[in-house]
């Protein structure tokens, strides 16, 4: 039940979820969902895998991946919705369904499921005929590869398994997981059992060929809500055992699990003793009077991707978040003062305190990109997006960096994503338009520039770039108008003066063109392009010596300026 509830919480966050029912002797996950009758499941998958790998050419990692790529879909029930029984218990749904039926529960939550099997007459025969260890000996890296392949398609994969002494228990606890959640009740059999499973799983993974770290999360369950004189004694009991285990296995100086266990336990509520309910979907997870609170709290712990002993108390976490926010603000202040390296130090401190701080990663990426450290910048934006999937500005920023790296398709995709998430950001349209323009997709470019101008009527950059577009289409009057508008908005827009000068030159308005180039030079005294353009205007008017002087000045400003060199040559030939 804990597994289904936590999976549903993850699904509610729009994560892609797969559930696998490996509790093969007592399968039950399918009871929580609306599933098709007779579809294949895990037992069928393993039987078919056995056949597949018995062919020698298939028995290698490429072969396993091929199997997954081609056939895995046949065992997965896609997008199943949770259903619930006993909806009457909390006044949910229609009382007519009470107790005797499954009720559609929440269609907004959908999950992929690999059931235990078909549950037909052959189920137990098929299950008993599987020789798990033989399969393992034949293809030792199969289960590892299986896990890697699934990881590529899902954000979270939850595997339900028993930790008894069945072969599948070893596979599920040692081979498959990255995070091993061991649910136990407060009795010696359970506690000693899970501590031992944890010990064996850790030992196995430390010496296995699996590169993934294994995180173990013990989860005490059925904790009675009422005051009970034995409770603390039992809490101390399991805490002590796990502290000893982790300290020994991971060579820690100290291991404090108090904060972890304060946040990770499932209380006993009689109301949930019957049926297959998913209270995480309907209970108030903000109130500690509900079991959903426990699931939510544990899911928050799981998401941190930290070992249990590094989990902080909520109070400590809030304190860190506040401090992180201060560091972010300090960093932003430094960034605006152009103190980029110092800003990076502040952002790193923010991330150290709050590793899930998407805004800090985004700010860090921005500082890196200003320092032309593009790989680092992209990593930061990736992380920001990973933490906050709808983070439009991070997509936009990553688009900018990728554009700087000439990765125009990637950049285009990022701008598009940014626009999808935040259609009101004019700059995204302008930048996407520039890429369309460079790809000669002029209609799309014009649409984007128009949209940007609609959104922000005084966005000089949009007018400027639309001017470039019109110029490329020989629509010189329109180009002239856009450049003029850009200059009106931004009177020191050197590029717009220069480009307007070029258009005026084309229209043989030489005096006006000359004024625009002079203005460009006034704003940007080192503009070799403006000098070269000025030279061209002189040349058009057959004023060769003046032209030569300006081409020479352009070359002086940029000694590898080929166009200026060619212009000088052509003047010399004329003379």
């Amino acid at each position: 039940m804990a597994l289904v509830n936590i999976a549903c919480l993850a699904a509610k966050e729009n994560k892609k979820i797969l559930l696998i029912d490996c509790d093969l002797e007592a399968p039950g996950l399918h009871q929580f969902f609306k599933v098709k009758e007779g579809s294949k499941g895990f037992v069928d998958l393993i039987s078919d895998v056995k056949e597949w790998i018995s062919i020698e050419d298939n028995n290698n990692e490429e072969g396993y991946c091929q199997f997954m790529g081609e056939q895995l879909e046949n065992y997965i029930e896609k997008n199943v919705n949770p259903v619930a029984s006993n909806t009457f218990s909390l006044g949910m749904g229609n009382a007519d369904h009470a107790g005797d039926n499954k009720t559609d529960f929440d269609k907004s939550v959908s999950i992929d499921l690999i059931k235990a099997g078909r549950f037909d007459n052959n189920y137990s025969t098929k299950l008993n005929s599987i020789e798990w260890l033989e399969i393992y000996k034949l293809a030792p890296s199969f289960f590892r590869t299986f896990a890697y392949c699934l990881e590529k398609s899902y954000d979270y994969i939850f595997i339900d398994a028993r930790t008894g002494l069945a072969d599948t228990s070893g596979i599920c606890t040692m081979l498959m997981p990255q995070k091993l959640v061991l649910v136990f009740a407060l009795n010696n059999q359970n506690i000693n059992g899970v501590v031992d499973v944890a010990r064996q799983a850790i030992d196995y993974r430390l010496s296995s060929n699996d590169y993934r770290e294994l995180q173990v999360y013990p989860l005490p369950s059925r904790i009675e809500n009422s005051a009970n004189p034995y409770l603390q004694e039992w809490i101390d009991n399991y805490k002590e055992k796990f502290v000893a285990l982790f300290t020994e296995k991971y060579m820690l100086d100290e291991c404090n699990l108090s904060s972890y266990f304060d946040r990770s336990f499932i209380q006993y509520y009689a109301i949930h003793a019957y049926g297959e309910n998913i209270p995480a979907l309907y209970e108030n997870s903000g109130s500690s009077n509900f079991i959903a609170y426990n699931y939510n709290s544990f899911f928050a712990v799981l998401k941190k991707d930290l070992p249990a002993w590094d989990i902080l108390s909520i109070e400590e976490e809030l304190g860190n978040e506040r401090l992180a926010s201060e560091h972010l603000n300090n960093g932003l202040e430094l960034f605006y003062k152009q103190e980029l390296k110092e800003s990076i130090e502040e952002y790193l401190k923010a991330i150290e305190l709050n590793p899930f701080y998407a805004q800090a990663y985004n700010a860090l990426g921005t500082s890196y990109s200003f320092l032309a450290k593009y790989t680092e910048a992209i990593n930061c934006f990736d992380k920001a997006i990973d933490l906050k999937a709808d983070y439009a500005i991070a997509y936009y920023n990553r688009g900018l960096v990728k554009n700087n790296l000439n990765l125009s398709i990637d950049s285009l995709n990022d701008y598009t994503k940014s626009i999808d998430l935040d259609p009101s950001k004019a700059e995204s349209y302008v930048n996407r338009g520039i890429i369309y323009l460079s790809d000669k997709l002029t209609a799309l470019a014009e649409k984007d520039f128009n949209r940007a101008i609609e959104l922000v009527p005084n966005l000089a950059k949009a007018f400027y770039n639309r001017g470039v577009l019109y110029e490329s289409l020989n629509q010189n009057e329109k180009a002239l108008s856009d450049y003029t508008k850009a200059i009106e908005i931004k009177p020191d827009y050197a590029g717009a003066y220069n480009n307007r000068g070029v258009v005026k030159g084309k229209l043989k308005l030489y005096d006006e063109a000359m004024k625009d180039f002079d203005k460009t030079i006034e704003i940007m005294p080192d503009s070799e392009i403006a000098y070269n353009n000025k030279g061209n205007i002189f040349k058009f008017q057959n004023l060769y010596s003046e032209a030569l002087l300006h081409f020479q000045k352009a070359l002086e400003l940029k000694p590898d300026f080929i166009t200026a060199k060619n212009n000088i040559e052509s003047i010399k030939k004329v003379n």
Partner: protein
Amino acid sequence: MAFEYSNFISYRREEQRNKFVKDFCSLFNTTTFDVTNLQEHFLDSNEIKGSPNFGEKIYDAIQKSYFFSIFHTYHYLNEANPWCAKELKYALDVEECRRQKLEEKDKAHFFSLNLFILSGTDKDLPDNIRNRNAIPISCYQHSIKKKTKAVNDFFSRLYDFMIDVYKIYQRYPHVDFVACCDEIVKPDDEVIKGWIREQKKIILENEAKQLPVLKKYGE
């Protein structure tokens, strides 16, 4: 010719362990600096792999390093990208070449190769380095950043081991340990790939013996 690097670090990047390797290397580089007094170490980064002289740069760096350190994982040897295997083969030849310059009493103590096992066991190591006291380090994955006592002890032992090797280098001021390796033949791609195939078979055979079976409590 002089040494340029304290240490050449050879490993195949695998996303999930990179952070651990990075943390480990930051302490390891301090150790190698303390031992050799050379600040620079060589990490065959992905960037350099794209460059046209990649191979030469790698061999040159191995030759100019006091030590060569491997972080071994299942994917260290990879037929599709045999660079790690080539580095290893070349480093072994460099070590042997240097050893030949030593007196008999030093030969037995001269090990310029450090072997760290990130995943798997020493049985999974390539046959030519299987019996060289490789050190499993994945047990430090959660303690490396905290610099626990166990971690400090580990690096202290590593320092002791490496300083002994360094002292051997220092005992032969007249030997050019870099130039003496000039004539070593660079590994042949096809031979290396064949060797990788053999080693991979051994690794899988070992893995098949390590059954994922939960045993009864107390056994």
